[in-house]
């Protein structure tokens, strides 16, 4: 039995400690945000935030995250609501500005990689409020274990969505 905190909720998991976190999130906790893309930390489709840092859940074992905070795509609205100090009622109606920007920009094509893209954007914008295009490219290409890959080629739309989200998050903080 391993205890992990997923999207702010303590969860007890029966799976063996060497189970990749991705399988725990998808199969035991029935979350659908993180996706299996390669199983080798080479694409980013499975990304989650671990104590605020983007990690690849496909190579992260359950045992290594015991007691730590895991945020998935499902948890982004609550993460934003907590950051803004919103009431529970308002939080339930809120989207994370990154998700709102992804919708406004009509970013996804097939959309399979976009979980990791939004998770990476969250990590970036929590630290860098007004990233330049070069900083965005660095975040999605060289900052992690591998570039975040999109086969449909939505990179232009992702850059535009990150910029839109950045100004929304800044505006909201002013």
């Amino acid at each position, binding site marked *: 039995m391993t205890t992990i905190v997923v999207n702010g909720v303590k969860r007890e998991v029966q*799976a*063996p400690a*060497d*189970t*990749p976190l991705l*399988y725990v999130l*998808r*199969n035991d906790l*029935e*979350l*659908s*945000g993180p*996706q*299996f*893309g*390669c*199983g*080798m930390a*080479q*694409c980013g*489709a499975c990304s989650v935030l671990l104590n605020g840092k983007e990690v690849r859940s496909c190579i992260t074992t359950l045992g290594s995250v015991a007691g730590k905070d895991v945020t*998935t*795509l*499902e948890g982004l*609205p609550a993460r934003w609501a907590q950051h803004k100090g919103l009431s529970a009622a308002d939080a339930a109606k809120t*989207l994370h500005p990154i*998700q709102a920007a*992804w*919708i406004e920009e*009509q*970013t*996804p*094509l*097939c*959309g*399979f*990689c*976009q*979980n990791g893209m*939004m998770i990476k954007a969250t990590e970036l914008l929590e630290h860098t409020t007004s990233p330049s295009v070069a900083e*965005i*490219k660095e975040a*999605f*290409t*060289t900052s992690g274990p*591998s*570039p*975040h*890959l*999109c*086969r*449909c*080629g*939505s*990179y*232009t*739309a*992702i*850059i535009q969505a990150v910029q839109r989200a950045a100004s929304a998050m800044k505006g909201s903080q002013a």
Partner: protein
Amino acid sequence: MSNSIDVFGAALSRRGFVKAGGVLLAGFGLAKAEGQQKAGVVDSLNPALAESWIEIHDDNTILIRTGKSDFGQGTIFTAYRQIVAEELCVPFEAITTVVSGDTDRTPDGGGTFDLLGHGMPNIRKAAAYVHHALLDLAAQRLAVPKDQLSVKDGVVSGGGKSLSYGDLVKGQKLNLTIPMKGDVNSMFGLVVDGNPPLKPVSQYTIVGKSFPNSVTVPKVTAKETWVTDVRLPGMMHARVVHPKTLGSKLVSVGALDKARCPNTQVVVKGNLVGVVAPTEWEAVKAGQQVASGTKWADWKGLPGDRRLFQFLKEDADWKTAPVAASKTNKGDVAAAMASSPKKLSATYQLPYLKHAPIGPTMAVADFRSDGTVYVYTHTQNAQALRTGIAHMLSTPVDRVVVRTFAGPGHYGRSNGGNAGAEDEAVILSQAVGKPVRVQWTRQDDLQWSTQSSAALSDVEIALDAKGGLSGYEINHYMPAMQDDRLVGAILAGLPTIPAPNEKGSVFGVANSMHDPWVYDAAPAVLERAYGTGQVGQNSSPLNVGLRDHSMRTPGQYQQNFPRELAITEAAALAGIDPLQFRLQHASEKRLLGVLESVRENSGWESRSKRPGVSNGVSRGQGVSVMFRSGTYWACVAHIAVNMASGAIKVEKVTVAVDPGIVVNPAQLKRQVEGGAVMGVSMALLEELRFDESGITANDWRSYPIATMADAPEIKVVLIHNPEVGTYGQGSEAANALAAPAIAGALFDATGKIARRLPLKPDYVQTLLKA
């Protein structure tokens, strides 16, 4: 209504009255399908009934059905809704539900490609029939002649009275029988027949606007049910241990450590080895264990990537399959060559590519005790997959249901039904008597899926004394590119359709002319396409080899790269700017329009001399054009070449696209941007590596694709040309434009012609040193 009403060849009848609700063309087909499931037999919807296509509900909401599915184009959720709303004269938002891709819930079948070409007329005509049926109903109810009625936002008005569509169907169950032809299991599916009057394009108010894609919100908020989310009661997880080579038969199966994998079952059927376990992690570990001890026969029957083009040139049989000649061939090319003062002769080579979806193929199958089979997957042609599964099991097709879910786009790989895991899931589910989920690994997906065919082309060009194109001959060579056999069935020794052979048509080994000629001014043109069997297939004891499958802009990409690069070379030989050279040889107004558009919008510089090298970097510009599925395209690439390393950075891509009617500008723009990035990826990075036994690429490092850092600045210019009156395709072609434009830009920057792809630094460096 007394008897049935004739609606331009369709028949409208009332099937009864209901106390609550009311519907034109209610969900009868769906109810029938559910009823039949209980009896262990499952049918498709009856496509002759409009209820199979469109439902008008008494609350003014509308449901539409299409056998096509979404692969990231968004077309069925945006353009199809817009086109139906337009014909019906209802708001876009009135279409609240799109049912797609399930064999028991959609009418037409056919592959998900050319959605605005062969796919669109079905849904548009169905909508037109329904629109006229509603007008006939309104004429009766309002006692006003049909030609004096008008419709706005789903409300019919005439004679000072009005009724909504919902009012017209309230309290009734109405049926509309639409004339149909074709075969639901074929590549193109069923076709709506007849010619109901269509709304004139000049009256369009919905087509042409940027409505959002309705699946974006669920996908961004983790509410979408992806194929990866399908969970059935009692479902088991499986991995398949694929053979060591593309020709290896099974010798012996590796042992399983029962202490580590206590609940795993090993299933062996012919050369198919699978492990099935209650948890995914146990299945993964069991798969690795069994694989490490399993012995396979050795096989060497491939030329290897290093010898591929020598093999295609010298060893492959191009004589058996019929040769395709272009319909636009004309003039005496030999005479033009004989009299030309300036000639060019060159060979161009394109490697095998992978569709490379971001998620490897996976599927869930439920082989039930009553013999019915349910397959849950992400497919571009659910009816064809259904037929293939039934064939494999030697069972009637009506005992198989395929349900389609959102998944990672794979760009044509399953347009003949199968992407890889479905048949294996069915075989394993039958073996263990439980629903089984088969997930391929990244390595499986690279090594056991189909590839986009390699190709080579020989070109001869003659110029006249003024530098005009006086003769053009091209001979294209490409192995068969449409192998829709189920690979699990092949491995298990179960029935499949035949491998591509000289007798097949769509699935044969013959090549076709895919790239329409566009330079009308040339007086003598000879284009031919030669086909051959798949490399290694005949000598493989498994009859597998390098299986090929159409991929985004199939065949045309392979033919357009050599043509467009050769035209750029011809322009240089003539001493004319390559964009100007194209303008001089084209006459189609729309082609001239896209060329002039990229010239203006890209910052194209007309010049006869190359720009110099600055700080070790040389910059260049290149252009390409294409006509595909009713759409004219032009592309300009601006690149920077590192003269020391040979590395190419694509700095800017400008694309002008004239599809005739632009249905949804914002969505089309995103499609073109995405295609441009895929095109840069294909041009610079992609090449399938294989040795004499099989594919050696096994991860994203050995089959790299473009990253965000590789993505250029992209400028998309949409040219809305409603007077053309047709919807051209928008989501394909964009990927094929970049490579010839980039190679042209490399020539502009360095004076070096790179006639094979990809343009990797070591290749470019070799050219620079030569």
